[in-house]
């Protein structure tokens, strides 16, 4: 029993994914030993949220077959909504201190942001992709991709027109002294961002694995016609998937508001980073996207620490080019397609 488990782990370590994960862990350990624990903390905190954005991207790609290039705009919508909910709450709290409200107000803001992301996603599917799908499925990947690019332009400029170009940010959601983790002081906001990411990922995974609707989403990703044959309502699944994927980007935007103040093109960086992740792990691989989120985040942290600030987009880009040349299916990719399955 134990031996076969070792055998399995050993076999996995010999795959491209296993090698990359092992190398990443070793690199992380070495860098932490060399530079101090802040490397580990930074990797883990930003990796969780990046994983969340990338998972949303991967699930939309897997189920709807859309190369979503407007994903960063849902990140922006999330941050914007959270800003407009949390600011009045915090203003109120400075006048009327209330410990309970202070503790729950960040969650209120994030719930609103999630809902806003989900609604925006559902509307996108209903108003943009459904009409396109009804018109023609020919050349779908290209047409839907171009549609997302146009959508991104509209959303960015809509934000600029309505809310202006200024930075709308907050100092932090939670008051209180930073926590000391392994000798590094980490603000409560960062800790909460990581905890939230893990909670959402576990919730999402359980939803996809154990609920009837989640299984239906996976079924659609694996075989659309087969899903139709067993009586799954495709239209509903597509709206739901889009809403879920966009809500994940929005909640990431909301919980990182203290790092990324909301402005029209704030979504660009998370969008690129999420695409790095998705290409790195293999298109449509949802759980891989989470691991990939940590790996790309590590790469970014290492680049900043050893190469220098400003190089953190160059190194991942070089890596993506290498991956596309030598293993286009991604490091966890395989010929079998499906959300949540490798």
């Amino acid at each position, binding site marked *: 029993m134990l031996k076969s488990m070792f055998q399995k782990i050993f076999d996995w370590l010999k795959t491209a994914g296993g090698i990359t994960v092992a190398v990443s862990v070793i690199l992380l350990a070495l860098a932490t030993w060399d530079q101090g624990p802040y490397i580990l903390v930074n990797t883990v905190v930003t990796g969780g949220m990046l994983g969340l954005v990338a998972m949303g991207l991967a699930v939309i790609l897997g189920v709807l077959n859309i190369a979503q290039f407007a994903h960063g705009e849902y990140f922006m919508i999330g941050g914007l909504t959270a800003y407009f909910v949390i600011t009045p709450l915090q203003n109120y709290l400075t006048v009327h201190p209330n410990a309970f409200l202070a503790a729950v107000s960040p969650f209120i803001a994030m719930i609103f942001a999630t809902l806003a992301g989900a609604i925006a996603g559902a509307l996108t599917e209903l108003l943009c992709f459904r009409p396109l799908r009804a018109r023609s499925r020919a050349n779908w990947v290209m047409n839907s991709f171009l549609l997302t690019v146009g959508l991104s332009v509209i959303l960015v400029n809509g934000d600029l027109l309505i809310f202006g170009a200024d930075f709308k940010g907050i100092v932090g959601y939670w008051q209180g002294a930073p926590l000391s983790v392994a000798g590094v002081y980490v603000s409560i906001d960062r800790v909460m961002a990581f905890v939230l990411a893990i909670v959402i990922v576990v919730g999402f995974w359980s939803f996809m694995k154990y609920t*009837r609707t989640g*299984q*239906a989403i*996976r*079924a659609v990703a*694996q*075989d659309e*016609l*087969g*899903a*139709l*044959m*067993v*009586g*799954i*309502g*495709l*239209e509903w699944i597509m709206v739901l998937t889009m809403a879920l994927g966009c809500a994940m980007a929005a909640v990431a935007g909301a919980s990182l508001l203290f790092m990324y103040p909301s402005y029209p093109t704030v979504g660009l960086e998370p969008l690129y980073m999420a695409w790095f992740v998705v290409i790195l792990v293999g298109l449509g691989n949802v759980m891989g996207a989470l691991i990939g989120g940590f790996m790309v985040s590590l790469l970014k942290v290492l680049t900043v620490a050893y190469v220098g600030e400003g190089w953190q987009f160059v190194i991942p880009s070089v890596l993506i080019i290498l991956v596309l040349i030598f293993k286009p299916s991604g490091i966890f990719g395989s010929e*079998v*397609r*499906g959300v949540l*399955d490798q």
Partner: protein
Amino acid sequence: MLEISNLNAGYGFLQILRDVSLKVNEAEYVSLIGPNGAGKSTTLKTIAGIIKPMSGQILFNGEDIGGRSGSRVTRLGVSYVSEEMNLFTNMTVHENMMMGAYTVRDKDVKHRLLDFAYGLFPRLEERRNQLAGTMSGGERKMLGIGRSLMADPKLLLVDEPSFGLAPQLTDQVFESLDTLRNEGKTILVVEQNVNKTLSVTDRGYVMENGRIGLEGPSSELAGDPHVRKVFLGI
């Protein structure tokens, strides 16, 4: 149970079916035979709601299902088994079976259906934890039929059950269809293996160039000089 009248359908501007009319009675085992490209599969796909009809009527138990979405048609009790089965290749056999029962909410009914399907295909139960994508052609065919049974269909539409199978496996699949018919299921089967099909079904329709050419009891069709000449080469 199923009554199709003057059905016209096709892909885009390409019309394939021309004024197709056919009828399947309750508990009947009916075959639709014909050469390649005659429109047999298109007929099944149109009934299953995968292709929208251009005109004509498809009545299922008195309800017009023409143009309804595939999931709606499945919910009404029509299960379609496609030629390539469209299994969920990255799910286990058991997960595939449970997905087949997507429209069934009642747990007890689900278990009854599962017992029935595993009883019909014991092989599937042996392989219940294997990924569907790693199974052999015959097993995949069994899983395709088994999964469609999980929706508790009143009418089963089976497209080319012998497609890509060795003769021995073909016999096995036909035997399981026989069992289903004896259980009182209504079956409409599309086949190119004319000899075999006409020897097991009750009635048959012969399709050529998108039209129904001949119809009648299978034994009569098997003796028909035109059928013998065109399909059996005798």
